[in-house]
């Protein structure tokens, strides 16, 4: 049985797989005319106030979200983008998913080894552990 998707959340991180993940989300969403939300989270150091706006971070976030919009436009689909600030990306992603009531989170990740152990990243682990909805983790080809 195909699961019914009404909305998909795509956390972006500026990695090489962002574009593919957005296009994947758009193609999944198209069947049921679901909403696609792309989000970028600026992680603010604890030494700074949470509402501090660091120019370089903002520029980077704007660029990544614009690229996400462009990728969606390539796929001929309209998405909504959001820029959040949080201490850690994981809880912000889960909170966004809960607030928006999304059915699926699609996250891009890289496969890296830290001390010989495969490392997916803190945010991915948190989302896999805490998100109440379905989560799809997408790893780009190693080449």
């Amino acid at each position, binding site marked *: 049985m195909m699961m019914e998707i009404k909305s998909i959340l795509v956390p972006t991180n500026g990695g090489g797989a962002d574009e593919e993940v957005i296009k994947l989300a758009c193609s999944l969403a198209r069947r049921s005319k679901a909403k696609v939300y792309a989000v970028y989270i600026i992680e603010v150091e604890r030494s700074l106030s949470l509402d501090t706006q660091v120019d370089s971070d903002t520029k980077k976030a704007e660029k990544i979200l614009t690229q996400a919009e462009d990728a969606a436009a390539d796929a001929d689909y309209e998405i909504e*983008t959001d820029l*959040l600030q949080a201490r850690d990306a994981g809880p912000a992603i889960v909170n966004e998913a*809960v607030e928006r009531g999304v059915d699926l989170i699609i996250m891009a990740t890289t496969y890296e080894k830290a001390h010989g152990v495969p490392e997916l990243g803190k945010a991915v682990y948190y989302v896999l552990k805490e998100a109440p909805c379905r989560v799809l983790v997408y790893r780009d080809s190693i080449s």
Partner: protein
Amino acid sequence: MKTNWRPKLGDKFIRRPRAKAHPLRRAIGSFGLFSAGYGNVGSSIYYALGLVALIALGATPIVLLIAGIFFIFTALSYAEGTAMMPEAGGSASFARRGFNDLFGSITGWALAFSYIVTIAISSYTAPAYLGYFWQPLTEPVTGTLAAMGIIFFLMCLNIIGVKQSSILNTFFALLDVITQIIIILLAILFIFAPHPEIFSHNVIGNWPSASGLILGIAIATLAYTGVETVSQLSEEARHPAITAPRALILLIAVVMILFSGISVAAFSTMTPTEMALEWARDPIAGIAYGLSIAIVPEEIATGLSSSPAGIIVITAFFGGILKLLPILVAVLATSILIIATNAGLMGISRLTFSLGRFQLIPLLFSRVHHKFETPYRAIILFSSVAILLLIPGFFKPETFVILGGLYVFGSLLAFSLAHASILRLRIRHPELSRPFKLRLNIKIKGYELPVTAILGLVFSSAIWLTIVTTQPYARWVGLGWMALGLITYLVFRHRKKLPLIRVAPEAKLPVD
């Protein structure tokens, strides 16, 4: 998706506004902005001229000129503010940043009021122009019912979320400018130039009393309202810091030239009393009718050509134009006024989104329909208020004047606060980037303050006070609306435990 997940105590998140985060696409250029602005400002002449003539009589062209100078100041302040803050809130956004949320809310309610009256007055005037084809539409009961029908129809369209085409706006704006230029040229070339004494007699011989003149200036500002549209649409404009000021300056030039020309055409073709008594609701139709009576094509033809063939061709040409003109004016005015009614409804939608986002109005107003994605509650509520405002139209012939007073009340309050906010921003945030910075500044305590904004503030406040003191209906309905808005804001902020005056964080708009 039901869940018990809650953020932990230390987990806090901030939603940052981003230039491209909203679903509105940045697709409109300078001319698109101008067309939308002209659709709103330009439509005003279709009812303002008659209304001003009712009060200012022969001084109508003069009061329109004085109000026009004030319009330049207002448009310039909006140009600086919009280039700084291309947001759908318009002057409510200026006030929020310049002062605080309380001022932002007051400006927002004033703007909402002016949009509601735009809806009422534009829809009320449209049937009068359609009366050319079906006379009963000029009667109070039929005309008011038709106006209510127009609002109801557009309300349904806006709930469903039919997009207004920018191309359609541009087409009507161009057609309107061309038609008005034809009217002006015909009147100036064939009536004003050979008989300037008709115009001067109509002006000097029907000079109003001093109080009529002052109230006339106040009501004449009505002709120039709608400048807010450019500011609101700037959120969807390409390079708004450049395109918005350009559109506003083009708007100033076109509107000033056309309005001056139309007022000359008006009093070259009819007396102020004729306009006030017979053509108050459809003055441009009156001018077109006056032209078709006053201009004799055969006379023009014999003056221009001596050959019989030339006379026949020229007679047929001018005869055709003069026959077509009243029909063109009736169709065009109705279209422009319906577009202006719709622009009012769209303005309300955009304003509600913006005010809700900044928590300046209760979120229930901004609640978005799950399917249509429109703020349907706000659209229904504000359309209903506009329909209620039309009820006196069944019984009172002076409803038109009442609506004019209400419109000026809302617009001038918003304009005053816009000027004040631009001045306050110069003091509070001199460091902010101003892609379009007003020149002609005076230095007070080291702060650069634009003279046009100071004059605009003084003028708009004085006009607003004139309306409040001389128009009891506008005073009580307008002040009642503002009081309702203030109480709503205070109760909402208190219940949500948000600061009453200071700036609150952005909210996510709820979906039904």
